[in-house]
């Protein structure tokens, strides 16, 4: 590992603070998903990905696609903390002329691998990329794609799942953010997804289930996926939406809205004191 677990947890916390600050400055955007994904993005940008933040188009890089584009604040925050651009730019999120569009646009910012927002298309784009690498016997690079669980309602996902399974794209790893919420409520009420593990297995995937808020578990699962050569891997990462901010956790009402000033202050205080574990705001 390039960092200690303690260091990674601190980075994840900083990313969460950045998410709150960005959303407050933007005045709109999604809170719950990005906070829940902070540990996964920390694991990717600081351990898992073979990448060069100062050379985002490096030809041997691993590719990470974000399928559920509305969670983009966490990616912007992770990229800034990893050195792709200055953290000060995060405050431009969703503003006129910003490179940080409300939903990610590849052409606006180097390091974004796709343009997304409309759900359900990430896995198939990842499949196209993985297929090209596989057919050209390129074993150096890997393709990762993160999608939401509510997103699995989309038919396009299952068209892609059949395709990935058929072609045994073992160089592709899908991470499903299983946070159980979507805009209209809990996923199991809106459109039940379970038995999710059995579904992905039926489509030809090796399925790993982990705690997606455990950075070490995320790193370990991606390492294991790398070692599985006969089939693609789907990692069902159970996360707590709004993770790290007590009043947002597991509440689907926080799916698509930003905190107001007072709420942001409360959230930042909680993050800076690690939920009351330390007294002063700055370590």
């Amino acid at each position, binding site marked *: 590992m390039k960092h200690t677990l303690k260091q990674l947890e601190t980075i994840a916390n900083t990313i969460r603070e950045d998410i709150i600050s960005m959303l407050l400055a933007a005045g709109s955007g999604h809170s719950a998903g990005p906070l829940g994904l902070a540990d996964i993005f920390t694991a990717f940008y600081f351990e898992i990905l073979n990448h060069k933040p100062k050379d985002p188009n490096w030809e041997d890089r691993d590719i990470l696609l974000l399928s559920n584009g509305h969670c983009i604040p966490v990616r912007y925050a992770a990229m800034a903390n990893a050195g792709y651009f200055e953290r000060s730019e995060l405050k431009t999120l969703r503003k006129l002329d910003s490179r940080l569009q409300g939903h990610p646009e590849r052409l606006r910012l180097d390091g974004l691998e796709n*343009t997304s927002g*409309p759900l359900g298309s990430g896995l198939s784009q990842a499949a*196209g990329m993985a*297929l*090209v690498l596989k057919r050209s016997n390129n074993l150096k690079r890997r393709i990762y794609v993160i999608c939401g669980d509510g997103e699995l309602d989309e038919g396009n996902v299952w068209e892609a799942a059949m395709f990935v399974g058929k072609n045994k794209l073992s160089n592709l790893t899908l991470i499903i953010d299983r946070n159980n919420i979507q805009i209209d409520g809990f996923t199991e009420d809106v459109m039940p997804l379970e038995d999710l593990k059995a579904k992905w297995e039926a489509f030809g995937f090796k399925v790993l289930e982990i705690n997606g808020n455990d950075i070490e578990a995320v790193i370990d699962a991606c390492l294991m996926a790398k070692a599985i050569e006969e089939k693609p891997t789907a990692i069902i990462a159970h996360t707590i939406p709004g993770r790290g901010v007590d009043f947002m956790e597991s509440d689907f009402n926080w799916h698509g809205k930003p905190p107001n000033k007072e709420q942001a202050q409360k959230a930042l205080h909680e993050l800076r004191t690690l939920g009351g574990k330390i007294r002063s705001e700055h370590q």
Partner: protein
Amino acid sequence: MSINKKNSDYLTSDLNNPKRESLRSGFGQGLLKVGQINPNVFALCADLTESTQMHLFKESFPERFVEIGIAEQNLVTVASGIAAMGKIPFVSSYAAFSPGRNWEQIRTTICLNDRPVKIVGSHSGISVGPDGATHQMLEDIALMRVLPNMVVIAPGDSVEALKATLMMSLDSRPNYIRLAREATPVIFEEEMPFKIGQAYTLLEGQDISLITTGTMTYHALRAAQELFKKGIDAEVVHVPTIKPLDEETILKSLKKTKIAITVEEGQMNAGFGSSICELASEKYPVPILRLGIKDRFGESGQPDQLLERFGLTYTNIIKQTISFINLTKKA
């Protein structure tokens, strides 16, 4: 009728008794050629490989062919990913399904994401015939021409379809090419030039501009021949690239004749004729009559019967030209 040597020289000598070949066949041969020239070209199909004439490519380059199954959303999004790796994917299906079913994916993952995916919509138009309205794609021009970044091509015959396929493989933008099922008259000699974004004045005339796209150009050429005998000197402007439009060639013709008829085998709403009207109304307003399908679906029948029913034949173009000239004279 004075003849533009440059373009009309490439017309086949006997338009009254032409050889017939389908646009999709021209595409299939073109794709094979492109595959031979460029090792980065891929071909993806959604369970219609032979019908869309991709089988020639598949047989020669199986390692660059990708079977997607009946999944048009996946067809274009997988292609977006393949293009991201520096490849040039051609994706084919019937136009009713692609771009009919997967428009949003084309918009987001290909146009906004700027990936040079080549979308091939076979079986467009009313002339699909007996399969009926569900399979007769009439809205594809409208759907594709509103997308920023998308190039829209409707070749006039199989010769041009082949050439367009070659040129598409060299173009860095997303492209849509509109093909038809039926064998249609071959109007061009093999030496006919083709450049994306260029319109071609095939016959020069003084009295009216017949501005056409796709296989309707043949009917316009026939109509112009007959009209000349009746004392009407019609100009025929063939527009194989619907977007971006060759404004210069089209405006030059409108400035000369000051009246035009557009012909397309598709919905007139937001279609090809509409794009000519948009151009004219802003830069050189003249009377324009559009011929095409007017806000309704097709139906089963033989291709020739359907073209007749919907007025997409040279005989109707002749009739409409005479009455439109008379109408505008009275006004």
